[in-house]
């Protein structure tokens, strides 16, 4: 481990944002209200695919308390929902309209919107809207024959390819070819707080406001300003406390546009709070992919080539992320391994399910499962250990940085640093891999079904290209850090405060961190894809260093010392090493730098600065996960007995927060591995629209996890060496548990599908028993 400079960076200090949350004074979307607000309720399609014959809103309009009822015809100016990263020619005709036009394509698609004096009346009115739909055939399997999205538009909206080298010739001559056919189930981030949006038009200032924003307020502001034709200063987004983001919160959905359009048209405030049933049929779903993957190997199991064809079940429409998950799938599948040649072919298919987009570790949860299944299959075929096959293929630290001609999020893949095998050794040691093998063998002899599985992975984080921050010291010495970041509960404020505190020489608790407000700062990347700490913290760091320079240069004059001989301790500038000598506080300096202050003498007013951080490439943290499971032979239930997650984060600003990210992610990963799945019947009716059917693991189901946070490979790509933390806990849970269940069954390759439900596992057990 590299020597850590002492300071508040690297300390597990307490979060500064917790007080309102603990005393019940949090401000979530549901807590936001404005006088005379209207409440919106969405009438949703009950058909998975059909032609709208008639929408009768008369009875709803007649209900006392109903202000208006809209269908698509009422908002002709509100075009379909754009992609976050701009125009994508090929996908333009597939974009989702705000309210369905002529056709509906999934159960839950918004068809009409009610605006009423209260939420009860709005729901009563929604019941009175009659929607007549003539059903069309549905596509419920992305592998099935394609159909038409609309006349002349195939349900295969795109085909994506990436790759390098000549895989065909490698396969033709390889020692062995290993092939798998695997499926990741449809699941998604299901935050405790459902979505919420409050649109408000402030006629006095001519500003349109969206409250309840999350994740990417600045990006969304751009998109919405374009859609509404408003200048940047006339539309603002405001983040509230956010009860979980996970990818699904904070994207632009039809409901966000509707509350804004209605606020503008009615000249007031319009509130919409999603209910759980809606959430489970209308918010972005994720993950569902089918992979046919094969590897060419030599006799030692060296990966010579991989070919991967997959079918990405996008649901009914592309959403704001367009093809990102499918593209990431192509770009990241080889993961931490060397591979000579690679070809990925993705079918981006539209089906009649709720649209899909990103969920924590998008493209990685899926590909880690696929790739690690493949590695296990190679080990089984060549009869070598699952550890050895991984070790010999892992990219070595002397090969770093390791570029490969693939692309993830429009960024050329180039792993920055890492000792993949070294970290794997740490985990194997933690779980006592060798002793464990004999303990498990002993238990198997007694008739138990127990096994261990492992998965290694490389994460991606810190997508640039740039982020900025503003640091300002007021005349009392209090500090405000203004960022365009966002907090989805991950401890953003604390981390930014720690970085600023260390650079500036102040107490982190004396810092307020602003985020999620487009009216305070013009630019911001928000909080997604594990980038806030990498990008925003480095920008805060840069800004704080400039403020430090300003303070020291001013103090140097006042204290008649060289700036280089001065230091800032606890917000006070002193001569280095002379804590009792002459000093001046940052507040006093800020006072002298007031615009009208006498001593300012031509200096730039204010003790404040903007800082920017630019980067060319993402950074690549890495890790591995090991699971020990037992199977109940009679019920097919899987019990996770032990779990290790090792993760190299480069540099942990706050280890407890990193741990929290990993554990929370693990719980969700466990959901996808064993419990959670959005199911549909053959007519496209969603079957998982309550928490009695969509099973999230609870405290009863989540086992204790040993977390190893390592800092062996700081990123060379930013001054603080940071890599992202948000997605490591979830990333390989499906992969590791599948491997462990195979081992427990004594049947490599038995698990081909997530989640591993007891019903499915029992079927496998019965099959194995009769074989």
């Amino acid at each position, binding site marked *: 481990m590299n020597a850590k400079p002492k300071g508040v960076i690297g300390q597990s200090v307490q979060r500064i944002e917790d007080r309102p949350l603990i005393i019940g004074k949090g401000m979530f979307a549901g807590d936001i209200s404005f006088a005379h607000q209207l409440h919106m309720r969405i009438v949703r399609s009950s058909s998975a695919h059909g032609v709208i014959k008639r929408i009768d809103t008369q009875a709803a309009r007649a209900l006392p308390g109903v202000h208006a009822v809209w269908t698509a015809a009422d908002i002709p100016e509100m075009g379909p929902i754009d992609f976050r990263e701009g125009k994508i020619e090929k996908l333009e005709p597939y974009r989702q309209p705000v309210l369905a036009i002529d056709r509906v394509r999934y159960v839950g698609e918004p068809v009409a919107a009610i605006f009423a004096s209260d*939420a009860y009346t709005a*729901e009563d009115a929604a019941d009175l809207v009659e929607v007549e739909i003539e059903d069309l055939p549905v596509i419920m399997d992305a592998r099935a024959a394609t159909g038409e999205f609309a006349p002349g538009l195939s349900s295969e909206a795109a085909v994506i390819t990436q790759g390098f080298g000549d895989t065909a010739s490698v396969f033709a001559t390889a020692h062995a070819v290993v092939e798998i056919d695997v499926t990741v189930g449809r699941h998604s981030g299901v935050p405790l707080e459902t979505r919420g949006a409050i649109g408000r038009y402030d006629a006095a200032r001519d500003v349109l406001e969206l409250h309840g924003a999350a994740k990417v307020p600045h990006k969304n502001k751009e998109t919405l300003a374009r859609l509404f034709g408003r200048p940047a200063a006339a539309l603002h987004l405001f983040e509230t406390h956010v009860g979980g983001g996970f990818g699904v919160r904070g994207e632009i959905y039809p409901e966000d546009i509707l509350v804004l359009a209605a606020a503008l048209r009615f000249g007031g405030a319009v509130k919409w709070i999603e209910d759980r049933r809606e959430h489970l049929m209308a918010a972005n779903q994720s993950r569902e992919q089918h992979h046919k993957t094969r590897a060419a190997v030599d006799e030692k199991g060296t990966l010579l080539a991989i070919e991967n064809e997959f079918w990405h079940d996008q649901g009914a429409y592309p959403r704001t992320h367009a093809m990102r998950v499918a593209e990431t799938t192509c770009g990241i599948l080889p993961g931490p391994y060397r591979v000579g040649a690679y070809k990925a072919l993705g079918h981006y298919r539209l089906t009649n399910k709720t649209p899909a987009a990103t969920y924590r570790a998008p493209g990685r949860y899926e590909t880690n499962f696929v790739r690690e299944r493949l590695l296990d299959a190679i080990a089984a075929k060549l009869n070598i250990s699952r550890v050895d096959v991984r070790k010999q293929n892992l990219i070595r630290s002397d090969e770093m940085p390791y570029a490969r001609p693939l692309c993830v999020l429009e960024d050329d893949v180039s792993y920055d640093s890492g000792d993949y095998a070294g970290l794997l050794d740490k985990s194997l040691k933690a779980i006592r891999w060798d002793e464990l093998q004999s303990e498990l063998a002993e238990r198997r002899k007694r008739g138990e079904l127990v096994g261990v599985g492992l998965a290694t992975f490389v994460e991606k984080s810190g997508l640039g290209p740039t982020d900025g921050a503003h640091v300002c010291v007021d005349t009392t010495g209090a500090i405000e850090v203004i960022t365009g970041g966002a907090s989805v509960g991950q401890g953003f404020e604390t981390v930014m405060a720690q970085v600023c505190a260390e650079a500036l020489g102040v107490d982190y608790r004396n810092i307020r961190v602003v985020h999620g407000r487009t009216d305070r700062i013009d630019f911001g990347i928000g909080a997604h894809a594990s980038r806030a700490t990498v990008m925003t913290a480095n920008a805060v760091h840069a800004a704080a260093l400039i403020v430090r320079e300003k303070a020291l240069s001013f103090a140097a004059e006042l204290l008649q010392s060289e700036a280089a001989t001065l230091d800032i301790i606890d917000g006070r500038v002193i001569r280095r090493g002379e804590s009792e000598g002459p000093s001046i506080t940052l507040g006093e300096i800020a006072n002298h730098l007031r615009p009208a202050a006498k001593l300012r003498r031509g200096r730039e007013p204010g003790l404040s600065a903007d800082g920017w951080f630019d980067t060319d490439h993402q950074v690549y943290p890495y890790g591995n996960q090991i699971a020990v499971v037992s199977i109940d032979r009679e*019920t097919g239930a899987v019990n996770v007995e032990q779990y290790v997650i090792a993760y190299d984060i480069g540099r942990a600003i706050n280890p407890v927060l990193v741990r929290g990210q990993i554990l929370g992610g693990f719980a969700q990963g466990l959901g996808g591995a064993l419990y959670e799945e959005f*199911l549909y019947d053959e007519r496209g009716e969603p*079957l998982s629209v309550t928490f009695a059917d969509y*099973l999230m693991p*609870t405290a009863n*189901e989540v086992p204790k996890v040993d977390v190893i946070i390592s800092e062996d490979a700081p990123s060379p790509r930013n001054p603080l060496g940071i890599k992202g933390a948000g997605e490591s806990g979830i990333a390989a849970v499906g992969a590791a548990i599948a491997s462990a269940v195979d081992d427990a069954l004594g049947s490599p390759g038995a698990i081909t599908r997530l989640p591993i439900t*007891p*019903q499915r596992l029992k079927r496998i057990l019965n099959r194995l028993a009769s074989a």
Partner: protein
Amino acid sequence: MKPAPFTYHRPLNIDEAARILADVAEHDGRIIAGGQSLAPMMAFRVARPQHLVDIDEIVALDVLCIEDATLRIGARVRHSRFVPGAIAGPTGEIFAKVMPNIANYSVRSRGTFCGSLAHADPASEWCALATLLDAEIIARSVRGERRIPVSAYFDGAMSTTLAPDEIIIEARIPVLREETRTGFYEFSRRKGDFAIAMAIVAFGVENGRITSPRVSVGGAEAYPRRIREAERALDGAAPGADAFAAAAEAAAAAVDPMEDAVTDAAYRRDIVRAATRRALEQAMQ
């Protein structure tokens, strides 16, 4: 998830409740007890009662005691009341074994035993236990009082022979003989979920032989039922692996399991087998 409009009534005694229910029953007026099944259904607007008659103010329905070897459970008694020791003897033991498997803490401290019987979910633990113990359901209406033996009570999934104007005021359960052994096992995806299937058993052991065996299986069919085939397999047999396996096999063969989108009949049958054997094993511990 806002319920459709309804009128709320809060009677102070049983007679008044019966009178109100008689008036509103034909407008889908309903009793609300703990609200732990009804309120969610109303939130989804699957249930749209125009009137709710809340029996929560009726103190007389609080009864929970053993009288003349009969356990009386009033309609206001919550799941959470059945903690170990609340009721004496093996009857109390089996109630206490079953109770923590129902839902979660907050649901248990609101939902009622009689409400579970009225709701008649196929996987209700209390319904399976009432079946095991030959409960009698005491129903009151303006027309008088009716005693319905549990064997004539259920008539389908979430469907009973209770008339729309009848209130369950009490369940009466003959207590088990002192030396009776009891066991319970259920399997659900997560703790507290409605079970995929469950078994509850009771039997005596005399001179190394099983006497008066009872096996009730819930969750597998539209409503719980005693499995006579399994009981016959146990009756007079030596308690142990062979008899229990035979009974489990008999139970699995006897049920005609429900199917749904995720659980087929074969799987439910497998769970009935496992649950029956495990409940029997537990009874011997």
